[in-house]
């Protein structure tokens, strides 16, 4: 067994203010741990990071990798290419090869043999060593190869050894002495080997100044936003990529007098949620596509019975069980249109972790003020990729419970009508235990008292009352954010995690002489038509960017935009997020060809 670190094609050191690293192997090889450690290292030197995972829907085995990008600038995508690949097997190289930069560096675990010739492209710098064997030999466990790799990575990136040690210690400190010591030893082994071969690492990283930033995934931010927004009752059923929300809340919510329940299925989830919301708690449920499908009847019930409820839908690749761990935005139609009959609903779409926090807190207000279900539509990339953002401004959050009555209010009333017809469609709400607020609540059509009614006039008034609430809410729904040049002729519309890639693509386009303007939609239902038209009116062409097959948002926008022949769709539905260059390419191509009528 050879245990030397082999280097091919050295290239000298390059100073980077932006770098993207992929760490891959079999599920269980610990690739994601390396990514996590790197994240801590990069943040310690003031860089922003953004990471993404590419795992299978299985627990061990099968290819799995993590990608982490670090930059002196704000970043919300993994960028266009991978600069540095750590591969614990050849499959990982195969998985990454198409995305490697032409001058990429590969750290290859040669325990099962050297890297095939076909992957050794000119321009690559390859460090090859039997990392797994080294770990097995010195530490008796193959798994420590990931810490060895981490050590090597440090040298390749020109990171100070002390920093690596600190970071490693911080991670393993609480996991028992044995684990800590073994890992520290692995680090040392890695460093020793690196000493033999790497004189000067191929990279140096420019340090940044991001010390104040925090690191959060969309799921964590959503969970925290819920708590700060006064959410106290969370009920869920495990499903990727939504489970993290439940798991973040589980140890924390009870400390605030709240509860996290795991129900027997999503039918129970939504109906328990309805019960708790009716009872007066602030409630959120979270799921992904398959669970959302099971909640279909329930959300209509909440709409009809006028129950305030927040539903987080963490999209993944569909339909059916689809690809549980992959990214897609194909449930737009489903949350906008699902459930029989017509009822008021709101669907908001944060684009990064910061927005997840604020918009979740606010979704609770919207739900209570308008007494309707509010969907927060996320996507796997937004849910699970960590990103650096400014610390959440807790003081900026507001708790507004809308027309929630007190017993004093009720005492003043002659008669209490739960579904009183009012100007803006919202009826003052009592909750059980309040004297004088006794009433009936039902998903059948009902009169103002909540008693079942099929009277035609009543039906007309009740439908109008309920549907009106969406119109009334419009003014305070999260408005789209505009980016880019006011005089641009090309527009981009998108939502959710595509935000990061779009913003970078705009820079690329600008360098190619194409100036663009971007409208990041944050309320996808109802579409804020005035804002959209105001954005779109001056534009010659509009590209709707979304991670799905049909161009679901594009089709919705076609229904509300003036001169909708200007609209083009840019879609991607292979389970991966957009790369900035893909959007750039699509727009450049379209810009060159003549306007095509979609």
């Amino acid at each position, binding site marked *: 067994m050879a245990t030397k670190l082999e280097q091919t094609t050295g290239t000298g050191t390059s100073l980077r203010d932006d770098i993207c690293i992929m760490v891959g192997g079999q599920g269980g090889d610990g690739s994601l741990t390396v990514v996590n450690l790197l994240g801590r290292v990069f943040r310690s030197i003031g860089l922003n990071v953004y990471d993404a995972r590419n795992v299978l829907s299985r627990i061990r085995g099968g290819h799995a990798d993590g990608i982490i990008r670090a930059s002196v600038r704000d970043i919300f995508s993994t960028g266009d290419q991978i600069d540095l690949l750590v591969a614990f097997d050849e499959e990982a190289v195969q998985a990454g090869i198409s995305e490697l930069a032409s001058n990429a560096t590969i750290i290859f675990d040669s325990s099962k043999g050297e890297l095939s010739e076909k992957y050794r492209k000119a321009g690559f710098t390859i460090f090859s060593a039997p990392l797994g064997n080294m770990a097995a030999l010195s530490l008796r466990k193959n798994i420590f190869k990931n810490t060895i790799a981490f050590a090597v990575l440090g040298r390749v990136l020109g990171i100070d050894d002390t920093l690596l040690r600190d970071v490693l210690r911080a991670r393993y400190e609480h996991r028992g002495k044995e684990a800590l010591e073994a890992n520290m030893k692995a680090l040392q082994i890695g460093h020793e080997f690196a000493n033999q071969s790497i004189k000067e690492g191929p990279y140096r990283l420019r340090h940044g100044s991001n010390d104040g930033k*925090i*690191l959060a995934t969309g799921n*964590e931010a959503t969970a*925290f936003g819920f*708590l*700060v927004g*006064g*959410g*106290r*009752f969370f*009920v869920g059923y495990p499903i990727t990529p939504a489970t993290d929300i439940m798991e973040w809340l589980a140890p924390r919510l009870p*400390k*605030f*007098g709240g*509860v996290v*329940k795991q*129900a*027997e299925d999503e*039918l*129970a*989830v939504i*109906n*328990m*949620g*309805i*019960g*708790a*919301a*009716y*009872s*007066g*708690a602030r*409630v959120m449920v979270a799921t992904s596509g398959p669970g959302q499908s099971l909640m279909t*009847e*329930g959300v209509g*019930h909440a709409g009809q*019975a006028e129950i305030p409820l927040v539903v987080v839908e963490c999209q993944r690749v569909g339909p059916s069980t689809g690809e549980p761990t992959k990214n897609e935005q194909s449930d737009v139609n489903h949350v906008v249109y699902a459930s029989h009959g017509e009822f008021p609903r709101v669907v908001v779409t944060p684009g990064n972790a910061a927005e997840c926090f604020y918009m979740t807190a606010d979704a609770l207000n919207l739900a209570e003020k308008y007494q309707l279900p509010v969907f927060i539509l996320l996507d796997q990339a937004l849910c699970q990729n960590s990103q650096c953002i400014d*610390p959440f401004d*807790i003081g900026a*959050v*507001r*708790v507004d419970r809308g027309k929630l009555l007190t017993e004093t209010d009720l005492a003043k009333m002659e008669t*209490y009508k739960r579904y009183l017809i009012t100007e803006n469609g919202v009826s003052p709400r009592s*909750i*059980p*235990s*309040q*004297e*004088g*607020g*006794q009433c*009936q*609540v*039902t*998903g*059948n059509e009902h009169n103002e*008292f*909540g*008693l*079942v009614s099929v009277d035609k006039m009543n039906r007309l008034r009740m439908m109008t009352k309920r549907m009106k609430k969406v119109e009334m809410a419009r003014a305070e729904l999260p408005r789209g954010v505009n980016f880019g040049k006011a005089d641009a002729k090309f527009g981009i519309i998108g939502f959710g995690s595509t935000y990061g890639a779009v913003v970078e693509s705009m820079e690329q386009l600008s360098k190619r002489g194409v100036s663009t303007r971007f409208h990041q939609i944050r309320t996808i239902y109802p579409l804020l038509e005035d804002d959209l038209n105001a954005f779109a009116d001056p534009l010659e062409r509009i590209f709707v960017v979304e991670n799905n097959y049909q161009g679901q948002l594009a089709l919705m926008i076609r229904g509300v935009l003036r001169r909708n022949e200007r609209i083009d769709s840019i879609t991607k539905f292979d389970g991966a997020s957009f790369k900035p260059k893909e959007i750039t390419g699509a727009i450049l191509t379209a810009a060159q060809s003549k306007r095509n009528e979609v």
Partner: protein
Amino acid sequence: MKCDIAMTRVVSPISPIWCPGCGDFGVLASLKKALSDLQIRSKDTVIVGGIGCSGSIHNDLECYGIHSLHGRLLPTAVGIKLANPRLTVIAAGGDGDGYAIGVGHFMHSLKRNPSIVYIVMQNGTYGLTKGQPSPTAVVGYEGNVDMPFDAVLTALSIPSTTFIARGFSGNQSQLTDLMKKAILHANSNLGFGFLEVLSPCVTYNDTYKEWREEIYDFDAEKGYDPKNRVLAFSRASELVSQKRIATGLIYTGTAKSLETNSLNSEVPMALQDISLPANIPRYEELLRDFR
């Protein structure tokens, strides 16, 4: 239910939608009496109805009433109770609602032991949709080929059940008594008060006569010990095989309630101060997790 506030001020309960003679009238009458005897305040009572003829019972009481979806009354009721455990929460629906489409939630409620009452109006049929066989339908009823579901046996099979009873709409005094026991059980935070009521559908499955004959009343048996789960199972099974039906308080035992297990706050969630200022310092602490 004799209401503690002027009834018309809140809402005039409509008259029941049931066919004359429907067993559900008896259930309603007993429930009213039980609530009134126990002096439970209407403002603190929530009736959760299912979908079915039976599932309209909440309309005829002057408490808080919520009509859930078909089969979903139990999760709805559990949500209500968790958010405010001070409430008296009574879920009441049909056997189709509870044992067909809702049986999954029934099983999990038996398991979780929430301190609510669940009244199932068992009539062997789907009344509201016009007489199709429900899970309790006997073989031969409207083409039914499956052996009937016996909820008492199944409830006994769940190790954490704490209160299992069966009444008969035609026996008001026993029924009222069982309802009171079930309510007291739940309101003492002892867990799930499951009460099946034989409540004949006179229109599609008039079983008054048969049931009167088939009933075997454990309450009337001297020395019957409702604390012995295995015995209850064996006695009730035996009755099933004789085509008879066990009634009375069949089993009562102890297990931690869902509320005891899950809640740790004095103030019910529904009534807590969730405003921002009160909590800022503690939220700020959590921000550290993101550093």
